[in-house]
């Protein structure tokens, strides 16, 4: 799994993930969100277009990140989840809390 963090001028942190987001890689995603929150950029967009597989551990990492971000007044929003990721979000009913968008811009439209 590869993970990259991009800081946008409007304060949004974009975290791009590619590969499998499972028990092996979950901690790294959680840490990346944590780092963004700690550097006072708690509005996070996780680009999942490169994630072909998400399991409940990976989902747990996104939820942990979401809680951290919300406590700091931010949020975690998902960008372009793949079909399998949507399936997991759907079956776990977490799609209502971790909302999906077509792009980083539409995730945080007002900057």
């Amino acid at each position, binding site marked *: 799994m590869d993970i990259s963090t991009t800081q946008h001028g409007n304060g949004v942190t974009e975290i791009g993930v590619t590969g499998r987001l*499972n*028990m*092996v890689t979950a901690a790294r995603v959680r840490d990346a969100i944590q780092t963004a929150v700690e550097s006072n950029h708690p509005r996070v967009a996780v680009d999942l277009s490169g994630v072909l597989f998400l399991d409940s551990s990976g989902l747990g990492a996104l*939820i942990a990140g*979401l809680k951290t971000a919300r406590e700091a007044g931010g949020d975690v929003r998902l960008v372009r989840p793949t079909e399998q990721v949507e*399936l997991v979000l759907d*079956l*776990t009913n977490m799609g209502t809390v971790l909302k999906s968008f077509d792009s980083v811009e539409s995730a945080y439209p007002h900057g």
Partner: protein
Amino acid sequence: MGEMVTRTLRLMSPPDTVDTVHDLLDSTWEAVPDLHMRDRMALDTAIIELAANVIQHANRGRPITATLTIIAFTDRIEATLSDSGEIGEVDIEGRTMPEADELAESGRGIALMKALVDTVEHRRVDGFNHWTLVRAREQVRIPDAPPKHMPSVSISGIIDEMARQRALEEMGILDTPPEDRFDRVTRLAKQLFGVDGAMINLIDGDRQWAKSVAGNGPEEMPRSASVCAVTIEDERTLVVPNLFENPELRDKAVADELVFYAGHPLHAPGGERIGALCVYDGSPRTFSEREQEMLRDLADWVQQELTASHELSRAAEVQQGLLPQSLISMPGWDIAGMCLPARAVGGDFYDWYPVGEGAAITLADTMGKGIGSAIIAATVRAVLRSAARFGDVAGAVDLAAASLNADLDTTGLFVTLLHGRLDMDTGEFTYVDAGHGLTVVARRDGTIERLRSSTPPLGVDLDTEWQSSSVTLNPGDVLITASDGLLDLYDGTLDALDKIGALALLASTSSEVTDAVRTRARGVAPDDVTVVVVRRDG
């Protein structure tokens, strides 16, 4: 069923992770024609959840080995993960999806699996966990239908049969002689329903074996010809008014002998269906609701007999395990003991173990026979063992009696006891005889001395002052102590002890004496028989 694709992976974690499982899945799916994208996605997700669950939880962080087998049938895909983890029972039914707004970070794995496939099963057999997932393929799936339990046809069937066979073998009932407690039930069933016969059949590998037959049924027959083998596939009572009219069972019918059949499954203590109680007749007949109820009651009765004997044989193993197995090092001495309970378990025990420079030796007889006495006997043994570490012989018995008095008082039991300590250098045996009085010393010159009992049994008088006596064993002398069951093997009087004493002087080892008693007692002893023989070389 069409073509079938099977793949098996052996997983060792660490170093393997769920990524290893991903690789197996990718290679498996390549070989499965027409695999629908939705099936693939659902199975990938469910199987990885399962593997992650096993790797994370099953062995509490310790290394784990597991085997994953995937079988793709044309209408369904089955996956079984068998692992060596310690996890016991799993409440699959009770695992529901956490509410989204609770933001739980974990606890979704099993609920997610249940949402993705039609069947999630967990079995624990022989120290292994077997997880089975079954998903009906899109080709046969009814659109928008909720997941429906789909029994696995391959793997779990084999596992069930293994568990069943093992449970049956553990009961130790196969090929045992007829027993009245079972024959009573079949006789009654035959009479009650007015049929040609009734049987208790056990399904063992590829044969049916009858534990009890009332009528002219066969003691053994091939499983393929057995109707009871069909009965055990389900929990319900199987009633077939006329086998010749049943398309699936027609080939098992025998004209004028086996036409009507009714059977109810019997279970091992762990719940495995191991056989059936059945009634049969050479003519067709009906079997009312009420008759079915009576058959079930009779099956329950058989069940209780089966369970009782199983539990008792386990208890007997445990009790035999409490007897000293290996000889402690006693240079210049030869010690042997035997304990033969009249029932599966008994109230006698003997014990020996090193204490300081010498050896403590105990023989105790709890009033009564059977389980109640056995429980008290185990308690007496434990209490004496710990008390023997403190003080002298009389002090140890005093301490033990003080701890046991309340228990003995409550249960209304008492215990006779010889507890002594042997100084291996001098041959001095210091002992307390609590109402026992069944100990002799056979001297090398042929004289037999009986040791006196100076105090009452434990549990009789709470204020007893325990006093020890002593006797010295010289080279060539033998000390023999026994429970009163030994007397019944002879003329019922204390003369039996003299006879054993004389025998002991003729024998060249202590175990020759215990073997002789064991041979004499086998099958005829009405009471528990226990003997300990201590010989000083010379």
